[in-house]
């Protein structure tokens, strides 16, 4: 087959489109680095002075490192527990689909995908307060539990494509069900766990609503929540506000720059398999 030449028309169109994506991000970086006088001269121009004091002020105003720590603790714990527990529940279900209990359980979990969060939003605050769970630990538990609906759907589909003979051989050799799961199945789930891990990580890190309704103590606020709470304090100091936004966006952007191929690949893989 002949190698087709580069299609320049499409390359140019795609490049123009990508400018629409990049423009707001350019504005964010440039406003975060300017001071009001430079803004008055021209909003669009590149920053000349590089006012890093905006960042220092934003870090102080929003207690940035505390919020960063909270977001990291919440996201990392949720993802780890989601991968360990949700896959295990899915494994038990996938290998017992002939049993009525597990079959009902499967449909019970996945039917929750259709329940809008708003119907539980008001009562769940009451329930979590009764359990003294309106804090970071409670939030992590809720992310892990709410993940079950979608993750069981994806994991069960994947596990059922793994031949059962492997496990039968292990059982013959005297391995327990737990041992079989941890030593044989869990490692085999790595590709789909990557997909689920990436999706959970992004949705937990960027979630706003659950922290908003659940977290009572200001010291436990996450990065998005802090931006919301300090809107009033930023006032018309847009340089301060944008420095704060940029700081809040940066950790995930750094992760993305390094793991871009892996992140997009994981989502592509998940889309094709399920």
């Amino acid at each position: 087959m002949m190698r087709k030449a580069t299609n320049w028309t499409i390359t140019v169109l795609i490049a123009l489109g990508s400018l629409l994506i990049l423009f707001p991000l350019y504005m964010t970086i440039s406003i975060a680095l300017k001071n009001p006088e430079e803004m008055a001269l021209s909003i669009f121009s590149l920053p000349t002075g590089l006012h890093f004091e905006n960042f220092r002020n934003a870090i102080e105003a929003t207690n940035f490192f505390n919020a960063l720590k909270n977001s990291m603790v919440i996201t990392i714990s949720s993802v780890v527990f989601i991968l360990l527990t949700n896959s295990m529940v899915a494994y038990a279900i996938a290998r017992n689909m002939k049993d009525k209990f597990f079959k009902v359980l499967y449909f019970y979990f996945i039917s929750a995908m259709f329940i809008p969060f708003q119907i539980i939003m008001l009562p769940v605050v009451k329930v979590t307060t009764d359990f003294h769970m309106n804090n970071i630990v409670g939030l992590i538990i809720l992310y892990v539990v709410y993940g079950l609906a979608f993750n069981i759907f994806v994991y069960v589909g994947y596990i059922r494509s793994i031949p059962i003979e492997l496990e039968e051989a292990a059982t013959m050799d005297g391995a327990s069900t737990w041992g079989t799961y941890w030593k044989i199945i869990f490692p085999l789930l790595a590709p789909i766990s990557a997909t689920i891990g990436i999706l959970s990580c992004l949705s937990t890190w960027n979630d706003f609503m659950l922290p908003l309704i659940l977290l009572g103590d200001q010291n436990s606020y996450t990065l998005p929540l802090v931006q919301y709470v300090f809107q009033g304090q930023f006032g018309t100091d847009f340089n301060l506000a944008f420095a704060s936004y940029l700081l809040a966006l940066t950790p995930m952007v750094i992760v993305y720059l390094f793991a871009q191929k892996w992140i997009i690949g994981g989502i592509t893989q998940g889309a094709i398999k399920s």
Partner: protein
Amino acid sequence: MAKRRIAFYLMTVPALLLFFTFHTFPAIQGIFYAFTNWDGFSESYDFVGFKNFVNIFKDENVINSYVFTFKYAIVVTILINVLSLLIALGLNAKIKFKNFFRGVYFLPNILSVLIVGFIFNYLFSNVFTIWGAKLGSEFLSQNILGNADWAWIGIVIVAVWQGIAFNTILYLAGLQTIPRDLYEASNLDGAGKFREFISITFPLLASFFTINMVLAMKSGLMVFDQIIALTGGGPGRSTQSIALLIYTGGFQGGEFAYQSANAVIYFIVIIVISALQLKFLQKREMDM
């Protein structure tokens, strides 16, 4: 064998209990309170039967929020799907710097919806207006978010800017599943690009189209973060989505029971729409 069974129960029962406690039980509670007049903090409440439900259908604020949410969700769903399909076709073509552009188009997906909303809020009020003034248009030189008739378009723009990313990646994944030789055959038959798209690409993308439509519509109907960041529901109540109404009325307005009834109706609406969408789109998949 009994030991195996016990292990399987131990793997699932704790999850079942937790899920029931924090998902099913609150949902049942929500339905229960929908039949009361509880304000969310009083000691006592009374049963009022279907009164809340009847009132909701007469409540102008509720009706407005449904009209806005549907108008918004439908427009966003269509725009996101058309644009992300076009971009995916472009990224799948023979272009330079393919990986770089793919990375750029996916970037919005990793950003916080709320913070992106705050950034656009500023762009709408202080940047796009400059362009509007340069174009000499009085309409474009005003902040669109401050205009009760047009603020919803501003929210659509932000949602589309960000929402395209994920759907593009899904379409791109779909395009990569189409075997190359199908195109070679159609090339030999002398089929044009457009014909090729209609008779090969689009039918083979059918299942991806279904999932993208359902996902985009669902997140459109749940819109919340963007509105908090862009308009707070205003001007007036012109951009108050259903989710925002339930949140503000339920937590701040002393309407816990009333908004629970609203949430029950909203739940039924979402179920019906998801079911209809799946049925209609899957039937189309079969026909193709």
